């Protein structure tokens, strides 16, 4: 089942893959007033245009030292698969480092409240992977750190399970 997370199996029409290496994933922040949900299929052109399910558009945050499209997700840990019986198992994956916006030398200022992070596949034209919400935040000349759930069978960011 872990092979599903590495695109080994294809159950339908799929994009042409340019290579066999892992894709590059990115994470962008969305305004609390923005329009995004689990039905978001693509981030489109972050920061530009009317928000739709295929374009985050102006729902993305903007501010000092924040780049439209967000930051690259660290992906140093390959997906893991475990089996608990002959039929049951879980394949799972979580980014291997926290998402950090800003540094002490280049702090971010995000004055308008945001409450969502969208993880998307930058290699595959911005197709959305997942949407996660949290309590509304603002940042002033500071750093915003987002730590993902522990990479376990029950809490990992992405999980595929059979029973």
């Amino acid at each position, binding site marked *: 089942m872990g092979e599903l997370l590495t695109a080994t199996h294809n159950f339908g029409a799929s994009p042409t893959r340019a290579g066999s290496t892992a894709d590059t994933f990115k994470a962008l922040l969305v305004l609390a007033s923005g329009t995004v*949900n689990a039905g978001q299929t693509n981030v489109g052109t972050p920061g530009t245009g009317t928000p739709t399910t295929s374009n985050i558009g102006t729902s993305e945050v903007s501010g000092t030292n924040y780049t439209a499209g967000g930051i690259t997700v660290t992906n140093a840990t390959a997906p893991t698969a475990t089996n608990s019986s002959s039929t049951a198992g879980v394949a799972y994956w979580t980014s291997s480092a926290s998402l950090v916006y800003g540094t002490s030398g280049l702090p971010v*200022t995000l004055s308008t409240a945001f409450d969502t992070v969208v993880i998307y596949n930058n290699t595959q034209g911005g197709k959305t992977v997942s949407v996660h919400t949290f309590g509304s935040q603002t940042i002033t000349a500071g750093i915003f750190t987002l730590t993902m759930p522990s990479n376990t069978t029950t809490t990992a*960011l992405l999980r595929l399970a059979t029973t």
Partner: protein
Amino acid sequence: MLITTTKGEMDDSLFEKREGTIDNDNELTTWVEYWEGDELVHRSAHVTLKKMPNFVGGDIASF
């Protein structure tokens, strides 16, 4: 300790420090603010998500 503020790097002793925590089923969040009078000069936050959120129709997102 030097901190980054809207006025550049400053010693934190010059400001009032305020901190807070949010802890619920979804997240553990901590934040720190530095104030100069009624002016916010620094705010950082650290959100730790505890689990993947549930969405209508399942707990998976769109691939």
